């Protein structure tokens, strides 16, 4: 019987060890799976409505937005009912924001566990990302119901939601790894996060359309990767439109770059994370 031999050395920064890290992560997939499930089941423990909250939350939020932005302020939606206009963008946005805010506080929240046993630490932020994705899937049911109600028909371009969500997931993972490692050392990140997310949401066409942004600002505006993702998602479902492929590809490239660099950085910090947390 051969035993696995581990060699522990002082940490060093390297992009090339990525393969090794990923293999290790795959070996620990059961932990990621279990933590993700618990993330969700813990959230609704000792609540009367339980999993129903996963649906109730977005619906209530949607009701508020609809009242504010279609009754009080008249946001142009180009003929699409406001409720479905907003919800089709809220869905990917909520995945992003709840994944990011969860993952950011993920490491300090598990200090106890981290100081007792080793596992790839990225599993903690990743489990929040995955849990947010499960919430996204549950809330999608509401979107489907809304689409049925308003009589929207899906076309083949609806398949564009898949690359859009993939890009979003990669981007979210990258940002989440970055903020969670930063939060471990500087708690300022977690404190600033709600404000940051609020700003980010208004810099993303969630409650309004990208077409409403003045032409002169577009260039700057489109630097936000979420613009292309949310627009693609909404356009593909509601208008049967094909996305701006160049923009989406650019966005994917940026996301991959962000994810790779912040993963390498995270792994570099990971080895002595517990000393500074």
């Amino acid at each position, binding site marked *: 019987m051969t035993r696995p*031999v581990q060699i522990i050395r*002082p940490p060093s920064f390297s992009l090339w060890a990525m393969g090794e890290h990923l293999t290790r992560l795959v070996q620990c997939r059961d932990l990621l799976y*279990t933590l993700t499930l618990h993330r969700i089941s*813990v959230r609704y*423990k000792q609540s009367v409505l339980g999993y129903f909250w996963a649906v109730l939350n977005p619906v209530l939020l949607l009701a508020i937005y609809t009242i504010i932005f279609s009754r009080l302020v008249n946001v142009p939606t180009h003929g699409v009912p406001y409720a479905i206009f907003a919800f089709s963008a809220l869905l990917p946005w909520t995945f992003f924001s709840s994944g990011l805010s969860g993952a950011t506080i993920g490491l300090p929240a598990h200090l106890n566990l981290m*100081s*007792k046993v*080793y596992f790839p630490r990225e599993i903690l932020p990743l489990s929040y990302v995955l849990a947010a994705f499960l919430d996204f899937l549950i809330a999608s049911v509401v979107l489907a119901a809304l689409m049925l109600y308003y009589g929207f028909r899906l076309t083949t371009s609806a398949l564009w939601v898949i690359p859009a969500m993939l890009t979003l997931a990669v981007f979210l993972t990258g940002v989440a790894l970055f903020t969670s490692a930063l939060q471990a050392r500087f708690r300022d990140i977690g404190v600033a996060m709600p404000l940051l997310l609020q700003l980010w949401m208004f810099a993303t066409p969630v409650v309004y359309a990208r077409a409403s942004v003045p032409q002169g600002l577009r260039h700057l505006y489109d630097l936000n990767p979420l613009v292309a993702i949310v627009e693609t998602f909404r356009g593909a479902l509601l208008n049967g439109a094909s996305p701006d492929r160049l923009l989406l590809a650019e966005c994917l490239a940026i996301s991959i770059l962000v994810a790779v660099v912040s993963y390498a950085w995270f792994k570099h910090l990971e*080895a002595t994370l*517990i000393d500074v947390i």
Partner: protein
Amino acid sequence: MFDIEFRNVSKRYARRTLDPPEEPQRSRWKNLFRCREHKSDFWALRDISFHVERGEALGIIGHNGAGKSTIVKLLSRITAPTAGEIRISGRLSSLIEVSSGFHEELTGRENVYLSGVTFGMSRKEVFAKLPGILEFSGIGDFIDVPVKRYSSGMWLRLGFSIAAHLNPDILLLDEVLAVGDVPFQWKCLDHIQQLRKSGRTIVFISHDLAAVERLCDRALLLSHGRLVCEGRPQEVTLEYQRSTSLVSEPPVRARGLSRKIECTRFSCEAPNRTDGSPVRPGEPMIVRVDYIAHETMADVVFNVYLYWPSGYLCTQLTTGVAGTLVAKGSGRVEFYCPVVGLRPGIFLVDVAAERYPEVIDWRHRCATLRVDEGPVVLGDIHMPHEHSILTGSGESVREPEMILLDP
């Protein structure tokens, strides 16, 4: 064949200390935005090299802050070394800390899954081992109750039961033997012995010198991050005991003590042995406490308290409740025990000067007392006794007088 190898391992921590809250000479504005932290380096381990062979049980002992926990952290990969290299061959897991990863809102069963996979099992493995874990823990119906409703004992027992089923190649024991009630402790010890017999490699980190001697083949002594000595457990614990016999450690209960009399030194000697070896059960012992009296005091009582390694008071040497007059200046109290009644092992020592109800000086756990293997005995204490064997019948054996209740 080495299972664990440390090669010139060092670990440095950046010790961050916060400034005191206000510095009056600075403006308030500066106080708000200044950098609040000072960094200074602290070497928890310095150039440590050792190895553990396959199937060996290694004990690591040392004072608080000697670097024991750092070794545990490095071995379990919780943190990385600053320099050097560690090689571990095989699956390593530590035996006790499992329950600290529990999530209070989850049920026992859910936590078994969570902890199981955290410590490296697959979900399938956990499922297969679940009945065994439940039985070992003795938790019963509580398994489907959120663990926040558990008593602390149940919490620990469930944790230990998971750990016991991890089935590692190398077992890391870090101050484990204080879990649960006595029957459960026996269960744990039994389990460890079984693992030992099955050829597992064990690293045992403890303050309990007696347990180290019982369990280990070899021991290391650490002091201030350096390896001081290495060898047979008996020799190493003796060395450890020598290094502590001087009263130097800052006392825990220093606050409120007047210290008009200071206890400065504790020593212990077996007068019938010239080689300076430790005392043995059934033989005489002399215990000395040196003191400095800063003023003359009446009714002073000197006490030496001996504790079991578990922390329970075992016995006491005292100059008597009434107390004596102590003149200003330095002096020595000598206790003579004609027959040592302690069983072999290591005892923790407190030395105190008191004037009831006031405590003048109290040196908490300032030394250890070692009692070597002697001619005796099983059980907790040695009762001095003599015996004679009477043979034959008739007049040489006197029948005890019987009291008959009914005529």
